[in-house]
Every structure is written in C-alpha cells, then in structure tokens.
C-alpha cells in the first residue's frame, strides 16, 4: 500500500490488491493498520527487499522481531 502512496491508517489492504491480499484472512482486508509508523516503514522495506513475494516477506519479517529479542537479552 505504501508503495502505491496509500495511507495505511486510512484504508485497509483492499486498496492495494495483489499477491499479499490473496493470502489474507478476509477479516483484515478492510482494516487500516494499528501499528506505529516505524513498524510500517520496516514492513514497507521488507516487501521491497522480498521483490513483492509474500512467502519471502513473511520469512524476512522475523528478522526485526529477532532483533527485538536480542535487544532484550
């Protein structure tokens, strides 16, 4: 969505249909994002790196989470 210049706090993922929304639970398709802007930028960067591939993006998304766990250790 952010790649398309759509504000994720105003619209749900349905406004940027594609390989990501195809894999989504219908419950969330119309929900705007509840996360902070830094997380949105991280997610945006990961989608870019993954080459728009949902499986790769889902795996890469574990990296920032792992960084969080290491920060607490």
């Amino acid at each position, binding site marked *: 969505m952010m790649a398309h210049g759509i*504000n994720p706090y105003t619209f749900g993922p349905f406004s940027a249909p594609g390989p990501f929304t195809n894999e989504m639970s219908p419950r969330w398709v119309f*929900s705007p*994002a509840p996360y902070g802007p830094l*997380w949105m930028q991280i997610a945006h960067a990961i989608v870019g790196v993954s080459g728009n591939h949902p499986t790769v993006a889902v795996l890469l998304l*574990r990296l920032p989470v792992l960084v*969080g*766990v290491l*920060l*607490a250790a």
Partner: protein
Amino acid sequence: MTLPSIARRIGGRTELGLWLGVASPLTLVLGVGGGHNDLLMAGLLVAGLAVVCQGSWTALVLGSAILGIASVVKTPAVAGLAFAVPIWLHVRQPHRRGLPPVRMIVSSSAVAGAVGIATMTIVSVGSGLGWAWVHEISSDISVVNWLSVPTAIAIFLKLATGHVSGATSLDASMRFIRSLGSALTGVVLAVLWFVALRRAPLTCLVIGLGAAAVLVPAVQPWYYCWALVLAGLVVTRRWVWIVLMTTIVSSVIMIRPNGRASRWIRP
C-alpha cells in the same frame, strides 16, 4: 546485556529475567514464530530502560529517545517512557524513603517527555505517515475473544440478559464496555506511576503493562510479552510464578500451528 544491566541497577535475578523474558515459549513460538512487532517493541523497551538505569542525565535523554522509538513500533511502550522517570529517580537514590523532591520529578519528567515526544514526532513526520496512528490504536478492532476483560464482560452481560445470538458481535454495548476498559487502563497506569515514585518502580511498570494487556479492547496472547519481558526481574512470589507459567503454556496452545486462533479462545 540489557536485562542483566537492569538487574544490576534495580535488583532481580538475571537468569530468571532472561528465562521468562527472552527464552520463554511465548516469546519464541508466538513472538518470533508469529513475526509480531510486540517483540521488537519489547526489546526496544528493555534497551531504553537499561540505558535509563545508568542514572545520568545523558542516560535519561538517550533512554527516552530509545523508548520513543519503541513507541512508534507499538504504542504500549509509551508506558515505558512514562515509567522511565520513576525508574531513573530510583536509580539515582536507591535508599530514599518517600517522594523524591518535586523539582527533580518535574525536571526529569520534562526531559523524558520532551525527548520521547520529539523522537516520535521525527519518526512520524519523517515516515510521511504523520500522526494518524495515534487515532488508529483507539479504534474498535474486530478481534472478539475473552482474553480482553472488557470484551469478556460484554459477552457475559449479553448472554445473561438473553441476547445469545448477538453475544459476540461488536455492537454499541460492547464498544461502550471496551471504552470503560480503556479508561480504566489509563487510571491504573496513572495510579501506578505515583506509587512508583515512592517504591518498586519496575514492579509498578510490569503490573501496568500486564493490566494494559488484559484491559485493552482486543487482546492476542502475544500481548503478554509486554509485561513478561521484564517480569522475571521482579516476580518473587511462588504463586505468581505459577500463574505466569500457566499463562505462557496455555498461550502457546491458544494459537494453532497454522496461525489461527484455537476454538477455545473464540467464543
């Protein structure tokens, strides 16, 4: 490095803190396995507090900036920013009885608040997304399960008054009770903040984060990580450990391996 450093300054057993905060099945299976940003927030929260615990004014500024960054990952970290003040005051005078001087409370709150809000502003504006996220967190989320106490009360009241078919639907009555839960979260955090100025500031923060994780409108089991990441340093009573262990083990079972919520948290 961060949890052990907090343990050295405030107390608590490092190995228990790490075991509960970092190595628990909830952290690893649901947090990392599920790819939830709660864990990045929790890590930044611990890192920010570890810096604050160094006790100097520079430490308060740097720590508050990290806590500001944690807050723009996920909002519960704002509680960590608020409690940075009593924690910092405690580290500077660990043996003080009663309230710290008002002058110190006001000046440290001003510094932590200004740095934290400035950091959040820079990231919000710099990301091009602005402040819209502040509104989004208060909106009613479609997740309905009994892990959220206000949601559970709403379901129970509707069942008790004979509204069986719409018991779990997100209607005006559920929204109202959920908003009471959010207001109560604010009151609990405010009271704990004043208690924290006198004694046990880290314990107060853990209780506050735990209360938030059951009182917000919609709860997922990995929200417990907000409090659990620090809880290992402050829990001493055996029965509390048993409650936490039970919570962690049952949380992991609540979400099935395919990522869907198990039958027994969906009413």
